[in-house]
Each structure stands twice: as C-alpha cells, then as structure tokens.
C-alpha cells in the first residue's frame, strides 16, 4: 500500500496583523505517502503550526489561504464545512502540544472518547464503550475501565496526552498530525509517548506528521524531514539523507547549536547569531541570509527557490554546503 495520501501544493497563508500583512506560510509544497511519517522541524514562528492548521483547514478566520491541499483525492479547500467536519476526527486526526487544551475539562474521559466514536462510526453505546476501553489499554493506560469515569484533571500530563492520542486514534484515521506532542512532557515520558505513536502508526499503517522544534525527535522516528524557516520549507529530504548530507546552512546551524552529550563540559556552542526575521517585513533575499555564515552576493537580493538535487532532496540555497562532506 503506497501512493500519496496528502499533498500540499503551493500553499500561501497571509495573516493580517496591526503591523501589516504577515506571510505565515510562504509557497509550501509537501507530500505524505500512506503509512509514512513526515517530520516538520522549525523554531517558533517559522509557520509549522500554521501549516498544520492549513492541512486541517482550521486557520483563523481572518487568514487568507491560497494553493491546494489534496487529501485522499479530495481538495480540502473545496469541501463544504459539513464534509470537512466529517473528515476531521474520522480520517484526519490531530494531537496537540497541550492535552489540557484539547480535552474538555468538564467531561469525563469516557464521554469524550465515546462521543468521538459515535460521531463518526456507527456503533451503539455499549460497543463504543468497549472500544474506548480497548483504546485506553492500547495507549498504555492502566485500569482503563476505571479511567472512563475520571476527568482530565485527575490524570498526569503524560496520561492526558495518552488519552488525547486515544481520542485521535479512535476512528482509525489515515493521517495523524502530532503538533509538538511531547514538548510539554518530561524526558522519560516524552520517550514513552514517541514510542507509543511509532508503534500505533506501524500497527495501523497510518500516515503521520510530527511537528517539532527538536531535531532529536525526528531523527530516529520519521521517513522524511522538512525544515522550515520564516514560513518556507528550506530543506526537505529522506531523514537519513538530511542528517548525513544536509545542504542548507540553516539545517546545519540548527543541528550544531544543540548541546551534544558527547562534548566535554564548557565547550562553547556554535550559536546562530541574531534571530529569525520579522515576517511582516519580508526580506528581498534569502530569509536566513542575515544570520548565515555562507551568505554572499545575491543571497541578499534574490530569493533562492527550492530546488531538487537528488530526486528526493530539495533545498533553497545559493551556497549549499559542499557535497561529500560527511557529517
């Protein structure tokens, strides 16, 4: 089973702000095959969450969107709100960073699970309840039957995120979008949740998009990675290729800036100077050029387009890091 499940074509999202128009997503193309995992990496404000909201068609009302989002053969921009609502939760599910904001605090875990299941699947109450118990067990919640009667505040952060994952998985979605699913969690819990997502993804042959700021999270757990900067995808490649032969200086700088466990204490970190640009004041040239150590000449005057090097390796840079340099 393969083939493209989701494709985003030339997506542009403009947000009006008091300071002027903010281009949150700038001509982004992406594709996810059925059963595969795509990682979207970038820092705050790079547009990764706006991109996921574009896919889910959950953009703020005032946002202007152009381009195409094709999911399972349908153009999501052309679907009626009613059809979209049926699709979301059923085939297209999402797990957010903070489980407390995605779960309703005044409803029990059971009500929220059963409601989702009955909304999308033709199941009776007893069957939906049984399915809820199975789902909670599958996501590693002890004593699932008793949990149905509990409220979100009675669970720990890690357990709440498991419940949110159970809700997302409840209707066997074809695509799961996990937007910073572990950022609010502790390291040992983070590893458990990422393992859980990987296991369920394999078992259900579900496609997944993991959105994160942490290159460590995508390294061992995705098939392909897209790196975003200032609203654009600046490099995209199969995961092993991206880490071994990165061409975009931003990707390199992002990886270098991470403290390494095998480095001696007090080793100065190769920091990226400056900070991301103000997206209401778009630069003429490459958005990363003011912070890039390779920037020269036309980097400041012309925007590099995303071009393919190998069939699957894309990057937007005039001075890519030399090939053959082994990371």
């Amino acid at each position, binding site marked *: 089973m393969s083939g493209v499940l989701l494709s985003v074509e030339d997506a542009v999202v403009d947000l009006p702000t008091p300071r002027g128009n903010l281009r949150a997503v700038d001509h982004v193309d992406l594709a996810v095959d059925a059963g595969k995992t795509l990682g979207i990496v970038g*820092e*705050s404000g790079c547009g990764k969450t706006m991109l996921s909201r574009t896919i889910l068609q959950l953009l703020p009302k005032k946002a202007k969107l152009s381009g195409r989002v094709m999911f399972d053969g349908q153009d999501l921009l052309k679907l009626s709100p009613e059809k979209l609502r049926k699709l979301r939760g059923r085939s297209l599910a999402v797990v957010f960073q903070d489980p407390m904001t995605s779960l309703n605090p005044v409803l029990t875990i059971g009500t929220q699970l059963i409601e989702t299941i009955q909304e999308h699947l033709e199941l009776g109450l007893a069957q939906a309840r049984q399915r809820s118990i199975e789902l909670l067990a599958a996501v*590693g919640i002890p004593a699932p039957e008793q949990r149905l009667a509990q409220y979100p505040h009675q669970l*720990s*952060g*890690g*357990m709440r995120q498991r419940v949110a994952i159970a809700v997302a998985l409840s209707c066997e979605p074809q695509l799961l979008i996990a937007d910073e699913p572990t950022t609010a969690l*502790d*390291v*040992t*819990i*983070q*590893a*458990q949740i*990422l*393992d859980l997502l*990987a296991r369920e993804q394999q078992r259900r042959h579900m496609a997944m998009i993991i959105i994160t*700021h*942490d*290159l*460590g*999270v995508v*390294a*061992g*757990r995705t098939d392909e990675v897209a790196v975003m900067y200032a609203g654009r995808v600046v490099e995209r490649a199969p*995961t*092993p290729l*991206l*880490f*071994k032969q990165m061409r975009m200086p931003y990707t390199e*700088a*992002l*990886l270098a*800036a*991470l*403290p*390494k*466990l095998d*480095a*001696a*204490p*007090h*080793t*100065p*970190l*190769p*920091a*990226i*100077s400056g*900070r*991301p640009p103000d997206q209401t004041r778009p630069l003429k040239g490459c958005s990363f050029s003011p*912070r890039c150590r390779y920037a020269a000449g036309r980097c400041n005057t012309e925007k590099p387009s995303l071009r393919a090097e190998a069939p699957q390796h894309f990057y937007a840079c005039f001075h890519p890091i030399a090939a053959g340099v082994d990371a």
Partner: protein
Amino acid sequence: MMQQVSSDPLLKVENLVVEYSVGGKTIHAVSDVSLEIARGETLGLVGESGCGKSTLGRAVLQLRQAVSGTVLFDGHDLAAMQGDSLRKMRRRVQLIFQDPIASLNPRRRIGDIVAEPLVISGVKDPNKRKQIVSDVLSAVGLDPALVSGRLPHEFSGGQCQRICIARALVLNPEFIICDEPVSALDVSIRAQILNLLEEMKTRYGLTLLFIAHDLAVVKAVSDRVAVMYLGRLCEVGPSEQLFATPAHPYTALLIEAIPVPDPDIRPTQSIPVGEPPSPIAPPSGCRFRTRCPRADARCASEVPELRMVAPRQFAACHHPLI
C-alpha cells in the same frame, strides 16, 4: 554521605527538608538533601518536573522556609539571618528564572529594571548607577543606548533573558541560581544564552547552580551534576564521569531517554512505562523503586544512603550499576 568538594565550599546544604501543605496533605518536595558547591564551580541539578529541584533552589535563597536542615553560604547560616543581614547576604546571591518575559515588569523601562537592584541596595548617585547599568548591558551583548529607554515587550525572549542576566549581574554577585534559564527559548537562541552564561561566569568569577530538565544542556555547562528524583538526591558526580558511567538506574534512564539527533541511533524501547509517583505519598525505601528494573525487597524497606561509588561520584542506590 558527605561529598566534600573542597575544604571551603561557597554553598553547603545539609539535610535540607522542605514540605508544602496542600489541602491538608503534605507534599514532600525536598527530603534530606545535602550538597556542596565549591567556589567557581557550576553544579547542574537535573530531574523531571515535580522532583523538587526548583524548590531546592528557592530554599537556598530562603524564599521557601525549610522544615529542617541548614543552608550555609560562605560559612553563614542563612536561615538564622533576618532583616538587614539577610538582605545584605542576598545581594551576593541572585536568581534567573525560566520565563524571561514574565520576570520583567512590562511597564518599566529596561534601564530602570536593571538599575532597580542598585537603588534597593543604596547606590544613591544616579550617574554611577547609569554607568554600572551601561557596563552590564554591554557585557550581556546589548547596546545600552538603544535598549535602556525601551519596554520589555519590544524584545524577543532571548533578549529578555539577556536583560534578566544583566539584572542578576548588576550587584556583582558571587553566586547565581539559574532555574531553567533556557527551556523557554528556541534552539538557535538557547545556544547564545548558554554561551553568554559561560562567558559571564568567567568574567565575573561566578559560582552557579544550574537547574534544568535537559541533560544535554546541563552537561554543556556543569562541572558536576546532581540528579534528583521525587525530592531526593539520586546521584552526584563530575559531569563527564556521570554521563559515561551512571551508577543510579534513574540517571541511566534519563540519559537513555534523550532523543539523539542521529538517524542511525534507533530509539530503544526499554524505557519503563511508569510515571513518577505522587510526592504526597512517595514510595517507602528508595523512591525510584516503583520504576526501577533492579528493585527488590530491600529497596522497599530501606532508604538508600548516598555513598561513594567511584572517586567523587556518589549514588543513593542499593544496587548501583557500577
């Protein structure tokens, strides 16, 4: 039990116990913790949320009253100090918080925010204050002429953290407690702030207690690392040694759980499923035993003492890994 680091440590915490009362129940936030920090040293303190690491930092500053135990700063018992003498001592100890934007008063100008500690400590000459503020702002990489008149909301998170660092340095302290100073910052900004802290440490001859949940960050800046779990100290040792040969199973688990940015290292599936139990009713004996693969009957009945497992490395475990 004592981890003597030098004959004359700057900070010495002995058998510190801090408890909170919430809804009639007692939270055992810090239980019988002892540690020392030598002059000029950076001690990293790691652990997951709720392990008591921030409470320990606050108790050192006497912002939390301890139930028992002592905090000796430069030989003086801080708990015994009051009023003026405590205020004087506090000038030598400063604190940097996790959320840099929330720790700056949104209605005050940067120049005034950074000068405030000088005003409180009685530097009366405005020109002198201005000079000190200007020096310290330049030291943290900000242009005093450009930033002094502006308000916090005009700055990014990374710049606000620079301002917080400037404010902490303005009284020329000896000791700074950094409580998760970079966890709210983006990767590219985080490296800048970590480098700045290291630079300031050398320039001002500081001693640091660096509290964080991210082991890689802690290792990057610390000479020694202390690991806390549910209010107790599990392990203390020199950074490199502790990461190369962890003795406590919890330290080993923390190291293993870090996502490594290398696609060849497939994540292991050996992370135990459990979560930290509640600090309201911590497990008897060793508090980590409910998640520990090596736990046995003794771990449930007997609290493991911190003892030496290798030169300068101490672990509180009945079945250490080394």
